[in-house]
């Protein structure tokens, strides 16, 4: 057969055309990265030089010495003893603790509220689901700043201590905050605590035993109520055995304010309520989406197999729903922690507030803001890493 001289290239031929190195993928890849690296480094140097020149020219102090300097200002509320003669570094640490106070309580409350509202939305009761719907829609579409400001203004209009609102005996609601009685310390409580821990251990052991029994014999043993009974019963028994000691530290009006009992400042209350209500609405939405995302066929098949509703919920619905619920909820937790920085608006001494005051008293804006950002970044990265780990553990393995 005569070879047609007009045919195209045969297999194995080198491609004709521009083979310059500029067209090589490998070369271009490296070139782009080198270019980017140069830009980043040059840009960084430029900014660094400018900052130093500006700070020098204006005579603004630089360096981290201020962290060991005397703070000189007092902090409104602090979980650990703080004095105006402590250092700026210590004051910032108090700020971090205050932030965590709001974050932890907020996360717990928001989760409870969110889960409850999420389940309510999927309920077959029309009234309940509509009420939950109204809550979620209203609270989601209003900015968190407005939530916090609203509650801060509400607490500011509460009556003065002399005319405080009394929801129940010993508790007072006023514009200085909320005070309520707490039990006095007693050595017997140590044993109650020990009994509580023992109770948890016992409940876990019970759960394991029931699982093994089920796997071996197929017999289903309901453990939920028994476990709950152990966890609450043991401490109760320990308390009763020691004579049921209980004395209350009741707040009483002395001089300017109430002494005794436990007090929550109005700023703390307003901040916690504001972020809880806001984040709870988002969590409710996430929970609803998670529950509704479990294909109904799964539930129907489980019912066809004769499985009990509790069992279905625990072993079929929840694992699939949790896979969908947990990642967005973790980022909502993160968002709540970051929203606690709104304390600066209402006078709650969280990290941003104290950082702001520090920045002002020392003039070192760059250092103070860097510290704040690093702290928040550490908290965020911790939660992110944990979430990524969880994600990888439960992800569906694909090709």
């Amino acid at each position, binding site marked *: 057969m005569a070879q047609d001289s007009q045919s195209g290239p045969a297999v194995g031929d080198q491609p004709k055309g521009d083979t310059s190195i500029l067209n090589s993928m490998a070369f271009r*890849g490296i070139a*782009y*990265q*080198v270019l*980017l*690296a140069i830009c*980043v480094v040059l840009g960084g140097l430029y*900014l660094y030089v*400018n*900052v130093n*020149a*500006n*700070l020098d*020219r204006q005579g603004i102090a630089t360096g981290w010495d201020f962290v060991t300097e005397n703070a000189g200002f007092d902090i409104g509320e602090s979980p650990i003893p703080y004095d105006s003669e402590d250092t700026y570094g210590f004051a910032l640490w108090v700020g971090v603790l205050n932030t965590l106070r709001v974050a932890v309580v907020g996360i717990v409350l928001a989760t409870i509220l969110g889960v409850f509202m999420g389940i309510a939305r999927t*309920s*077959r*009761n*029309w*009234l*309940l689901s509509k*009420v939950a719907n109204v809550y979620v*829609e*209203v609270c*989601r*579409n*209003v*900015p*968190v*700043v*407005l939530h916090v*400001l*609203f509650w801060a*203004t509400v607490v500011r*209009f509460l009556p003065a201590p002399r005319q405080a609102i009394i929801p129940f005996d010993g508790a007072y609601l006023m514009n200085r905050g909320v005070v309520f009685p707490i039990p006095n310390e007693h050595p017997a409580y140590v044993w109650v605590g020990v009994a509580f821990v023992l109770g948890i251990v016992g409940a876990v052991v019970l759960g394991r035993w029931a699982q093994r029994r089920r796997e071996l014999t197929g017999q289903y043993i309901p453990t939920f109520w028994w476990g709950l009974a152990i966890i609450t019963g043991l401490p109760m028994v320990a308390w009763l055995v020691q004579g049921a000691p209980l004395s209350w530290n009741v707040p009483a009006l002395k001089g300017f304010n109430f002494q005794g009992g436990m007090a929550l400042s109005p700023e703390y209350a307003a901040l916690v309520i504001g972020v809880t209500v806001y984040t709870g609405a988002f969590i409710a939405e996430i929970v609803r989406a998670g529950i509704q995302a479990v294909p109904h066929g799964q539930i129907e098949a489980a019912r066809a197999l004769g499985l009990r509703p509790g069992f279905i919920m625990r072993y079929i619905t929840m694992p699939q729903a949790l896979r969908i619920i947990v990642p967005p909820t973790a980022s909502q937790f*993160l968002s709540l922690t*970051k*929203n606690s*920085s*709104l304390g*600066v*608006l209402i006078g709650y001494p969280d990290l*941003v507030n104290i950082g*702001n005051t520090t*920045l002002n008293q020392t003039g070192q*804006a*760059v250092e103070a*803001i860097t510290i*704040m*950002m690093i702290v*928040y*970044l550490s*908290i*965020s*990265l911790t939660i*992110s890493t944990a979430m990524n780990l969880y994600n990888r553990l439960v992800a569906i393995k694909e090709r």
Partner: protein
Amino acid sequence: MNETATPVTKTRHTEPPPIEKVPALRWMRENLFNSPLNSMITVILGLGLVFALPDFINWSLFNSVWSGDHEACRVDGVGACWAVVGEKHRPMLFGVYPYEEHWRLIVALIIYLSVIAATLTPMFWKIKILVPLWVGNLAVCLTLMWGGILGLAPIDTSQWGGLPLTMVLFTGTVVFGSPLAVLLALGRRSHLPGIKSVCVVFIESLRGVPLITILFVAVNVFPLFLPEGLEFDKLLRVMAGMAIFFACYQAEVIRGGLQAIPRGQIEAAEALGLGYWQLMRRIVLPQALRICLPGLVNHIIAAFKNTSFVLIIGLFDILTATTAVMEDPVWRIFFVEAYLFVALIYFCFCFALSKYSQLVERWLSEGRRF
């Protein structure tokens, strides 16, 4: 013989007729009282609403004062004082913008909202229409607000406030942040380790800090980065900060969409000889953006709500203006009505956008098979 009628057979699957003949009662039985637990919940909730709702309606609608002086609101027994909104709505909505020029803001708002409505309609989703539409929209609105030409009095950005400022911040955030978000998402999915690590570091570090600190950096620290004599308008700096923050969150959503595109698409495009940017622009991004559109809209709603954070740095958006206005000692006690008014504005906008996002989700799901 006309025995052609089909005999009616009694099967075991016939259901007895429903107990209630009246449809309303039947609905209540199925939805409100369908189990003992639900019945109890219905009774409790119903009682609660019966006690609370009439009071609330009385307070907010029937007994309320709609206009007049603060004296009228302090009379015993009156309900909500909507007169505070009537009295103060101009400073709340428009900030310190000069009174006579408010018409410019109203015209700009109407044009802007119409263009947004047009942008959301799929009919207009062509680059040839959208880009000129938005360029024209921005030009007209900015001219109206800024003035200085065509006989309009010039008004400096420091006097912009209220709802128009919220819209300006929102627009700037989304318009500047979206291209950056696409670039960051593509960079993060790049195979080149250098680019990928830079993008990852950028996204993760900015997602981990609160918006407040970014605003502080934009207002206090950023001017120190500039050489002497160079000055950026404060509004622009704040907008840049919020745009970068928005871009980092949006990049994650887009990345999710990019991950959902099957590898086959990219391989086929490469086999056809398309370059990287062509393939991204014509094949991958249109599909990816359609997939993650609900997530994108969620973050756009969040960007609108985040404009309220400028309260902390002293820019007068609608929430700051309201707070400032409510410091008036005479009207101070009626803060609930004022905040409800602002909440209503935010709610309308965000709720409309979220309903739109649900609509888009439905359009997408209608074209798919599971």
